[in-house]
């Protein structure tokens, strides 16, 4: 079940959800709350002529964070805005810090806003779930699918969070689930 605006507010009051800075009343709709764009954004450095770079996520030495740090550069969107070019991936963040408590029986999905989607703006690439226990700024995979640049401004409403009640408490949020009993051994024996 999706939480309504009232239930989201109650969950915030009960500290099951933390959103910092706290959204204003205007940020809510009946079943979602809007989050805003952090000024920090990363762009991929332009490739050098004659050099081909290919990502190999299954390579034993591949590290996404290190690779992205090498291949991208961080910059700040100026207050007057910056045009997001067409057909290119940028990594951004929400300005808000979100904390979804482990034992809250809640999960969330980050989704785009229809007003921006109509212009071609996508804010995630197939991984919208915010699991219970998550805390931090939400990473956004920003892609302008349209043909014209879209001006982004820091603090603009960029995405919405939709909260859902989970059926039961996840194992990691349930104390004493196996009191007095042993779990079956893992498939591959842990330990050196």
């Amino acid at each position, binding site marked *: 079940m999706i939480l309504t605006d009232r239930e989201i507010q109650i969950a915030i009051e009960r500290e099951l959800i933390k959103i910092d800075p706290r959204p204003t009343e205007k940020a809510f709709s009946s079943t979602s709350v809007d989050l805003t764009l952090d000024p*920090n954004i990363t762009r991929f450095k332009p490739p050098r002529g004659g050099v081909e770079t290919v990502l190999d996520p299954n390579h034993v030495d591949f590290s996404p*964070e290190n690779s992205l740090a090498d291949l991208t550069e961080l910059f700040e969107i100026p207050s007057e805005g910056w045009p997001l070019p067409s057909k290119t991936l940028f990594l951004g963040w929400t300005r808000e810090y979100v904390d979804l408590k482990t034992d809250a029986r809640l999960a969330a999905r980050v989704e785009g806003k229809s007003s921006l989607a109509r212009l071609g703006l996508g804010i995630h690439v197939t991984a919208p779930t915010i699991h219970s*226990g998550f805390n931090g700024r939400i990473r956004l995979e920003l892609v302008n699918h349209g043909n014209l640049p879209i001006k982004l401004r820091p603090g603009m409403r960029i995405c919405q969070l939709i909260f859902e009640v989970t059926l039961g408490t996840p194992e*990691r949020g349930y104390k004493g689930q196996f009191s007095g009993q042993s779990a079956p051994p893992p498939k591959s024996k*842990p330990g050196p």
Partner: protein
Amino acid sequence: MGATNEEQAEALMRVKVEEVGKGLHPSEVVVQIQTAEGDPERLVVDRRSIVDGTIEVGYPIRKNNGYYLIELPRETIGGSWRIWVLKDAVVGEPLEGVA
């Protein structure tokens, strides 16, 4: 909706982490956790989620001969959510029947 309270929240367990690098955003850091199998797992977390070199992991999922199966708050860089760690890597209120 979930039934939680401050007592329960305080009892949630934490796993020891080592900071090994910066994240892409100034608020992020890359931390490393030593797994029971020996290979470390790395993940990106928010700096403010680190307290005394630990991050919250809720309660262990399973136990096995002094090892805990824990679920991390975010997917690791290698794509895992759950990892086996030595019992000593987890700090917090001991669980009844888990020691």
